[in-house]
């Protein structure tokens, strides 16, 4: 891999409240990859993603996206540059309809035809959303909300998609569907994906590489297959 | 001065000044006689120059240009702080008290008058401090209790000739009851609704005072309220005299203020005070720890109201006259501002706040018109630059209600 990473964190530190701090995190993500970040509750996974999206100001280090330094820029400028996040808990706009939620995903875009096209694409990926399109986001089930959140993120035509716990609280069947779609948008659309998961097994199976976070530090990084085979990882995160 | 940060600062300044002119000029410059620029330009240029100077000074300070001044000053204030720390608190307290006692002997009538006002507001501020500073319940209708106290004494004095000293506890009780009546329905509300509802209650009290002609004589008010009386040794026998002179009023309110300070101080360090604090910091946690939050809040209201009522009774006696005019919303805002300016929950802070808001404007009497204008601006500025007040309370921790 000699190409330039699409995302690079150099010794990033940040804190979200008094707990959930990250210290000196470095990681690289190359175009076309699916990289998962696994770790226990409170290891700093979501903090990392919020720092990348510039929602959380970092206290040290540097973040590069597409070769340019992005830490310190206003968060709302990143989606138009192709960096998009589906945060933990999905954060659907509860009193906007499904259609409006999707439209908000394309807020910075002005090309009506393109937006229309992408919305149809999202409805193809998640047919249930088409049925529900006039319903308020808050009335959807957990799985439907996750689909809507991903659909909303896709509306911005991301190049790098950050997904925070997409499987949280969902039925296994839905989780499978979600992961199938993650693979599809990665392979068909060439979207680079950073996946944060507590369900390490699932995440690593879908990924090319993985990072293991523990109390705010990266303690291991490797090919996903190697991590899956690593006995320590199996013991700590895969429940064996 | 050409760093990007500095350029951004001055660009912001230019935009702000332009904006300010657009807001100022229509108010002053558009008249039926024609358009006029001179007045608004005059005011605008003064503000612009002042703002530029402040910005420039601030920028220099950021760069540490004033290090040669600020470092020695800091060192001096540090060592001063240490030196004052050596002297026990009671020495300071007795010095202040001695000063307060000697005050009328050293000053003029006019100063007495101002001092009485300050002390009345100290009592009010301390009372409101119980509600806002200690229990964290924002009350924008606090002056209603002051009004209840004042009218209680005025009516009892005029109709039944009851003595001030007897009426003082009655006024306190009535205010406490009013506090409970107002407090009860509002306690389940969340904080910012509480603010608007207490404001509404304050207005209701004022409107009722204004319109209940048969009881309160409406906007004309009640005349002929008696000053406090006492028995005093004169001409070889004990005689009843009225404490009607300014000096005597001063000592009465001083006594009242000292009692209030002691009461609030003791309250602050009691179990109830800690319960107030618990409710303020985290109501759910307080409830889980077995604090009956509803009762505690009601108690805070009632206690705060008592101090307001006592001050009100004194006010009626002092003015010998009460009318609804004295109990408007702006008075509530004033008392609240003292608490905020001084430092919520801090007794010396509130006293300082009362001094700053009542005595200081008297010094600048020529600018009477600008008083409330400046005061509103200062209130907003305080929130920006010194939200904990001039003399912050020691125990005030980080508010748990702060948004994350």
């Amino acid at each position, binding site marked *: 891999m000699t190409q330039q990473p699409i995302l690079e964190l150099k010794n990033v530190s940040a804190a979200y409240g008094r707990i959930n701090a990250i210290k000196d995190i470095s990681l690289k993500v190359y175009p076309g990859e699916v990289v998962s970040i696994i770790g226990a509750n409170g290891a700093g996974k979501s903090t990392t993603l919020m720092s990348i999206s510039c*929602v959380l100001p970092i206290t040290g280090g540097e973040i590069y996206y597409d070769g340019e330094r992005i830490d310190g820029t*206003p*968060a*709302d400028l990143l*989606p*138009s540059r192709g960096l998009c996040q589906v*945060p933990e808990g999905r*954060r659907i*706009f*509860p*009193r*906007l309809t499904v259609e409006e939620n999707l439209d*908000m*995903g394309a*807020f*910075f875009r002005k090309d009506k035809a393109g937006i229309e096209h992408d919305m149809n694409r999202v409805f193809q990926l998640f047919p249930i959303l088409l049925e529900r399109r006039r319903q308020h986001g808050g009335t959807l089930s957990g799985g439907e909300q996750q689909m809507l959140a991903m659909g909303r993120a896709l509306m*911005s035509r991301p190049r790098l998609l950050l997904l925070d716990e997409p499987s949280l609280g969902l039925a296994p069947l839905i989780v499978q569907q979600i992961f199938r779609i993650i693979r599809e948008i990665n392979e068909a659309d060439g979207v680079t994906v950073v996946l944060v998961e507590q369900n390490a097994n699932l995440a690593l199976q879908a990924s090319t590489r993985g990072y293991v976070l523990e109390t705010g530090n990266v303690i291991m990084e490797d090919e996903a297959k190697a991590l899956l085979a690593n006995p320590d990882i199996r013991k700590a995160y895969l429940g064996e | 001065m050409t760093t990007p940060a500095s350029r951004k600062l001055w660009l912001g300044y230019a935009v702000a000044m332009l904006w*300010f002119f*657009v*807001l100022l000029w*229509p*108010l*002053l410059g*558009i*008249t*039926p*006689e024609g358009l006029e620029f001179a007045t608004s330009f005059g005011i605008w240029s003064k503000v612009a120059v002042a703002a530029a100077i402040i910005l420039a000074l601030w920028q220099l300070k950021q760069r540490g240009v004033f290090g040669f001044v600020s470092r020695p000053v800091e060192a001096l204030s540090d060592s001063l702080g240490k030196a004052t720390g050596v002297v026990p608190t009671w020495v300071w307290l007795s010095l202040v008290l001695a000063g307060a006692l000697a005050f009328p002997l050293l000053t003029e009538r006019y100063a007495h008058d101002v001092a009485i006002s300050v002390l009345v507001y100290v009592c009010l501020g301390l009372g409101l401090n119980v509600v806002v500073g200690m229990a*964290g319940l*924002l009350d924008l209708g606090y002056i209603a209790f002051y009004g209840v106290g004042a009218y209680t004494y005025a009516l009892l004095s005029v109709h039944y000739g009851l003595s001030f000293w007897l009426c003082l506890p009655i006024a306190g009780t009535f205010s406490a009851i009013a506090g409970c009546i107002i407090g009860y*329905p*509002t306690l389940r*509300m*969340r*904080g*910012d609704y509480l*603010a*608007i509802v207490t*404001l*509404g*209650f304050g207005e*209701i009290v004022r*409107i*009722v005072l204004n*319109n209940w002609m048969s009881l309160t004589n409406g906007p004309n008010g009640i005349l002929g309220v008696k000053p406090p009386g006492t028995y005093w040794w004169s001409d070889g026998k004990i005689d009843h005299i009225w404490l009607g002179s300014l000096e005597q009023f001063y000592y009465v309110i001083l006594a009242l203020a000292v009692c209030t300070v002691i009461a609030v101080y003791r309250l602050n360090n009691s179990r109830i005070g800690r319960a107030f604090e618990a409710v303020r910091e985290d109501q759910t946690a307080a409830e889980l720890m077995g604090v009956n939050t509803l009762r505690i809040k009601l108690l805070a209201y009632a206690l705060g109201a008592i101090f307001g009522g006592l001050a009100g009774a004194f006010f009626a006696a002092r003015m010998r006259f009460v009318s609804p005019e004295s109990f408007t919303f*702006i008075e509530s*805002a004033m008392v609240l501002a003292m608490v905020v300016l001084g430092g919520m929950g801090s007794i010396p802070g509130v006293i300082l706040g009362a001094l700053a808001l009542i005595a200081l404007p008297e010094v600048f009497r020529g600018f009477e018109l*600008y008083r*409330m*204008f400046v005061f*509103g601006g*200062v*209130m*907003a500025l305080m*929130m*920006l630059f010194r*939200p904990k007040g001039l003399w912050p309370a020691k125990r005030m921790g980080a*508010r748990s*209600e*702060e*948004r994350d």
Partner: protein
Amino acid sequence: MAPAFHKAHKHVEFFLQQLVNGITLGGVYALVALGYTMVYGIIQLINFAHGEIFAAGGYMGVILISWLVSQGYPPFICLSVALVLAMGYCALLAMAVEKLAYKPLRSSSRLSVLLSALGMSIFLQNGLMLTQGVYDRAYPGEMVQGGFEIGGAVISYMQIVIVGITVLLLVGLNILVFKTRIGKAMRATAQDKTMSALVGINSSRIISLTFAIGAALACAAGIMVGMYYGSVRYDMGFVPGVKAFSAAVLGGIGNITGAMLGGLIIGMIEVFAAGYISSEYKDVFAFIILIGVLYFMPTGIMGENVDDTRV
């Protein structure tokens, strides 16, 4: 029978008249209430300075209309030009207040912002007093005159103009908030600021815009109140401000439809209470309703649109 019939007829007339007055006043409250509800919906702040924006609107109206009249323009032009310019002025004023006194406090406790708002309210009110004087200032009298009678109730053309402008503004606002993209963004920001940043919405700008829109509506209300009663005063914003806030709470704070409905109800109640019960205590009724609503149905009649309800 005849006198009884006559009496009943008088009752009907009186009722109709109150109804007309109530609608007029209610519309005005609705316009002011919208500013409170939108701002509360988006940053959970009781914008105490909103009543002062309303008063500033009233003053801008009198200033601009007087000037335009003195230049010899016809009343229709005077009124519409003054309305538009004054609304723009108040929008700028409210945005300045927001930038100076609220935005730097975005991460402070709610109490701090509330006190800052209170300070701004006092500041603006006294600023108006200093620049415009302490006395009432009269609107030019010859703007809209006359009226007609329906079923015994007199409807003045002024009332028609007021209700007409109110309806126009309310419809416009509904279109803006519910049909346009910027309206969607406003609602999205009100519902989740972090998430709206993550989809690329600049929440500061949206908040600023919310203040501007609310201020423009309050300004229109201020002008109409000034024309209706014939004069303005520097402290005219306080009581209508509290009543309009009551209206917003009654409708369910954060809820735009609720604020319109609440405004209408509060206006009706005030007028009918003044007509049938006591005009001295008319202001008390609005406060009692506010307290009653908060006590018995804290989310208002339409339910509130606020997620974070902590202080």
